[in-house]
Every structure is written in structure tokens, then in C-alpha cells.
């Protein structure tokens, strides 16, 4: 299946003010058999060359206005797209991400050879760099609004700090979960032992705190420090409600916020703050990050049920087995009281875990969780409305859609 790239679509946009509507139509008429590649993407996102069928492109842009449908978020969600590839979504900020990678390795590795190898292991392990990419995308999108010509050092540092915090939390999570594999590679504690893993994580939390303080922006400092606190709160909240069938959806969302969405929201808001935009825009960016983060976590929780063991890299239903009751289970518990008994028994009986997974599927728990993910996604896209239309805003939309595609 061909991948539809954001950049190709941008290149096809006419110079008229209906650029986004043209793009929408382009998606509708394009058959998936067309494959395209983009060349030489410049920072601003405009194409240098394009192997697209430019004739088709021109014909779309001449369509009259009254036949063009509305580009509301819900409609965007329902459009059948090709598979979104994050790599190409992030191409508009590819250079920024390259610099980030180099900086990260030098920051972490500088102190100690063991930490350097651990850093190589974790930073080289094929992470998507989604959080720093979000920082760069929001930075560039909001920079346009405030007339900032180029990203500041603060923006770059913020991205590095965010990625360090994220990575530190992953290293510690793997220790807590006793996981052997992360993204197909061995975890830090598997290779170097628990001691090194704990120290590496601590070092990164400490280093990011120091860099954060040196940004000398109190609002951002408070914002990011809160995240580190939230990580711990989320883990504690989760541990204290294991196997608790009375857990409400609200509590689950709060826990998901602490564990995932908090960091994303802080990244997007922080970027907006450093761009010097209005506080209302910064707040919208916070909401975008929060809704995206929540949508992301819900999708992850759905995949834990629906994917096979090989795809997940760990046994399916492992959240449920540990007593961590996520969105699909919470919805299913409303419909099927039998599920409660099975969960309360902590799955001692042979095959009871599989019975529970089947029950969750049959009660429409997965389906309702998908609706929840979509609901948050729609909200996230709506939060982007204050941003100027362009390649960066589109990329931010694409990220939301990419996330949903994982459960289609």
C-alpha cells in the first residue's frame, strides 16, 4: 500500500486560500495505487521537485467552491487515507531531529563510558522521537505566529530535555516491569544490570532538571517539573488500584494523563511559550498535547488486547494479567458482571485470562475504547485551529491520525 506523504500534498496545494480544501479533495480522489516520493524538502516544507501527476493536481484546484465539502475534524477522521508514515510526517523537522540526536548522545555519554554504552543502547534503539518532533513542530508553527524567524536554543534544549525525561522513564519502567526487550532490542537493565539502569535513569532525570533550570523560564520550569512528579503519581495510582474492578473511567483517564499525556502536554505548551505567543494559544497547545497523549494511551491499551504476542514483543493481555485495568476492560465490566469474578480471582485458573480477553472483545469493550480514542483525537485536532494553516499544522494533524490508524 502506498504511503501518502504530507509533503506531496503540500506541494500540490494551489496558491488560493482554499489550500486545505484542495488537499482534502486530493485525498478523496487519489487511489492507493499511486506511489510518490518527495525530494529535497526545505525547512519551510515546500517541495523542490515532485514526481506527482501535476495535471491531476491542477484539475482539482479548479473545482468550484460550492462542491468542496467542509474540512471539520470529524470529516478528516472519516476520510480513507493511505498508511501514514511518521518518518515522512516528521520530514519537515528532520534536520532539527538530527541535531537533537547528536546533542543527546554527547550530553549523556560525556560522564562515563558505561553510561555512554547505555545511552547508545537506549537512544539508538529506534525510538520514534515523537515528543521532540512535537516540540519542533509546535515551535515552528507558533514561531510563524509571533514572527520568530528561527528556532531558539531554548526550543532545542526543551526538546532534548523532553526526550531525556521520556527515555529515563522508559529505562526505569523496564526495570519495574522486568522487561527484557524494548523496541526489539535488549533493555538497559537486561544488558548492564539493574544498578546501571537505575543510575542511568536517575542521571538523565537529574541532567534534564539542571538544563531545565538553566532555561530560566519559571513557567516552563514549573510545567516540566510537574511532569516528573506526575510520572511517579501515575505509577503509584496504578499500583494502588490493581485488580480493583470498581475503578471508574475518570480515574483511568487521570492515571493515563499522569503517565503519558502530561509529558506531551508540557512539551507542546512549553514550545508555544518559548515562541512568545499569546497565553490562549499556549493553552490550546497544552490541550492539544493532552488530548493527543490520552488518545495515544488509549490506543496502546487497545493494542495490548488486539495484537498478537509477536507484534507486541510481550504476551497479549499483559496489562490485564497484572491487574492493570484499562479502558477496554472498564467498558466491558459495565456490561458483563462475570468478568469481575474472573479478574478478582487474579486468573489462577488455567485459561481464565484468555476467557477474560474474549469477554472484553465480546462485550464491545474494544469498540467503546476505540470511540474514546477517536473522541480525544477530534478534540486534539480542534485544538489546532488557532494555528496558521501550513505544513507544520498539517503534520500535527497527521500525528493524531497516525495514532488512530494503529487501531484500524
Amino acid at each position, binding site marked *: 500500500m502506498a504511503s501518502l506523504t504530507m509533503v506531496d500534498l503540500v506541494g500540490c496545494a494551489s496558491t488560493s486560500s482554499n489550500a486545505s480544501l484542495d488537499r482534502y479533495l486530493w485525498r478523496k480522489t487519489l487511489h492507493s495505487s499511486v506511489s510518490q516520493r518527495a525530494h529535497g524538502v526545505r525547512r519551510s516544507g515546500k517541495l523542490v521537485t515532485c514526481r506527482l501527476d501535476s495535471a491531476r493536481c491542477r484539475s482539482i484546484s479548479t473545482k468550484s467552491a460550492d462542491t468542496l465539502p467542509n474540512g471539520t475534524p470529524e470529516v478528516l477522521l472519516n476520510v480513507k487515507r493511505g498508511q501514514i508514515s511518521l518518518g515522512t510526517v516528521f520530514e519537515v523537522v528532520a534536520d532539527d531531529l538530527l541535531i537533537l540526536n547528536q546533542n543527546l548522545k554527547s550530553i549523556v555519554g560525556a560522564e562515563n563510558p558505561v553510561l555512554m554504552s547505555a545511552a547508545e543502547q537506549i537512544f539508538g534503539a529506534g525510538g520514534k522521537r515523537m515528543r521532540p518532533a512535537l516540540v519542533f513542530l509546535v515551535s515552528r508553527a507558533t514561531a510563524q505566529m509571533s514572527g520568530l524567524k528561527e528556532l531558539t536554543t531554548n526550543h532545542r534544549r526543551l526538546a532534548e530535555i523532553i526526550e531525556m525525561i521520556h527515555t529515563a522513564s522508559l529505562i526505569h519502567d523496564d526495570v519495574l516491569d522486568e522487561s527484557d526487550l524494548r523496541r526489539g532490542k535488549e533493555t538497559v537493565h537486561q544488558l548492564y544490570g539493574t544498578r546501571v539502569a537505575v543510575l542511568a535513569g536517575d542521571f538523565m532525570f537529574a541532567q534534564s532538571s539542571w538544563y531545565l533550570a538553566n532555561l530560566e523560564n519559571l513557567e516552563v520550569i514549573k510545567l516540566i517539573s510537574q511532569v516528573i512528579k506526575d510520572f511517579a503519581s501515575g505509577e503509584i495510582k496504578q499500583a*494502588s488500584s*490493581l*485488580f*480493583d474492578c*470498581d475503578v471508574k473511567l475518570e480515574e483511568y483517564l487521570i492515571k493515563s494523563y499522569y503517565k503519558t499525556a502530561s509529558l506531551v502536554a508540557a512539551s507542546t505548551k512549553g514550545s508555544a511559550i518559548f515562541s512568545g505567543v499569546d497565553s490562549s494559544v499556549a493553552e490550546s497547545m497544552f490541550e492539544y498535547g493532552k488530548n493527543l497523549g490520552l488518545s495515544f494511551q488509549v490506543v496502546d491499551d487497545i493494542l495490548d488486547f488486539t495484537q498478537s504476542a509477536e507484534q507486541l514483543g510481550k504476551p497479549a493481555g499483559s496489562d490485564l494479567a497484572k*491487574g492493570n485495568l484499562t479502558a477496554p476492560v472498564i467498558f466491558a465490566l459495565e456490561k458483563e458482571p462475570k468478568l469481575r469474578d474472573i*479478574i478478582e*480471582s*487474579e486468573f489462577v485458573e488455567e485459561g481464565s485470562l484468555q476467557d477474560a480477553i474474549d469477554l472484553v472483545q465480546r462485550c464491545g469493550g474494544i469498540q467503546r475504547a476505540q470511540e474514546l480514542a477517536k473522541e480525544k483525537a477530534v478534540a486534539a485536532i480542534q485544538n489546532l485551529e488557532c494555528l496558521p494553516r501550513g505544513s507544520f499544522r498539517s503534520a500535527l494533524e497527521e500525528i493524531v491520525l497516525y495514532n488512530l490508524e494503529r487501531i484500524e
Partner: protein
Amino acid sequence: MATLVKLVQPPCPKGFTRQPWQQQQQQQQAKFCELQRFRLINPMKAAAQSSSPSSVKVSQIKENLYQALQGINRGIFGTTSGKKSEIQELVEQLESQNPTPDPTLNLHKVDGCWKLIYSTISIMGAKRTKLGLRDFITLGDLFQIINVAESKAVNVMKFNVKGLNLLNGQLAIVASFNIDSKSRVTITYRESTITPDQLMNVFQKNYDLLLSIFNPEGWLELTYVDDEMRIGRDQKGNIFVLERSEERIDL
């Protein structure tokens, strides 16, 4: 016979490691088993001894029971229904061989300290999480000290808290009992104490939950009593299997 071989090496209940100071007990057990083997090989001589075929049968059932109890931590934190049935079956077999059908007329036989080796009460799911009995606190031994002279029974639950300087403590529930029939008593809750104070802080929030699990209130049927083992069934349908213990408990 496989069982003969097993008798020579007595079964080891989980958590029981042979320490030097336990060697005396081990020797006593070995002596007991030697005696049993002697009785089996020489049935005439065995008959001449005070033991009867039924006591041999009882020790066999007990051995099977100990075997079945291996690795399930007294059944409190989850057992498969298959295992539960197996143990239920063995319990019923023992009860059918009860040498003391009128325990309340022979209360001296139940007097003293007993240690729980199996129960159908369970602490699972949300209850277990709320009480911190998952990673944070470990449930140690459970004892019951019966004081016939004062018609008193004290249930003692030992706890270990990891970290916090390896805090050890206990919950003691004091109850009084009245005789209902020749095999049944009624137990009335009197008071409960957690020592030390630090442990009380840990359980403060969920104290009622803790008590509801271990509260002995209600009637208790003594369905099997001999010198080493006691089995009881309570009003809530729970089964308790206890063995004689030399443990010294501070109350």
C-alpha cells in the same frame, strides 16, 4: 512401596528449612517414621503396639495433605479449583477418621498454640491490593492460641514490611468462646491490637477490611482433633487446618 520410601524422608512443608536447631525435631520425626515403617513391616508386632490400622491410614492421609499443600502458601492468595477440590477431599478423609468426636468435652486437647497450614479464606483482587499484601507487606505465619482456662482464643497474624528497617509486627484478635455442643463452639469477638505502632500506621486506612477477613466471630465446628492436627469449619463455610506449634507468641 513408594510410600515407605517417602516415610523415611518426611515431607517438608513450604518455608521449612532444616536449621541446626531444628535437627532435634527432624530426629524426632525420623524416629516417628522409623516406628511407622517397623509397624508396617511387622503387622503382628504392630498390632501388639498401641497403634491401629486407622492411625497408619491417618498418617498416610496427613502425608498426602502436606504434599498437596506444598507451594500454595496456605491457599490464601489463590489456588486453582482443582487444588481446592484435592485438599477438600483429603480434609474429608481425615474428618472421617476423627479420633476425638467430642472435643469440647476434652478441651485440653485443643488448648495451646496452633499454626495455620491451610484455609479457604482468600485475600485476592482489590482486597489484596488495598492491604498492600502484593509487594509491600508479606503475610507471615498465622497462629491461634487457645486458653481453655479463660475460655479465650487469640488469633495472631504476623506481618513483615519490606523496607522500613524490615518491620515485623502482628495483628492479635482476642475472642472468647462458649461451648454449643460436643463439637461446636461459638466465638465472640472481644478486641484487636496491632503492634508495633508503625504497623498500625500502615494498616490504618484499611483496618476494617483487615478485620473483616480475620474476624473469627460465629460458630466453629471442630471436625478433627488429634495430638498434632486440628481441623475446623466455621459459620461462613471456611475450612481451617492447623498443626500444633511450639512457637512463643508475645501478646
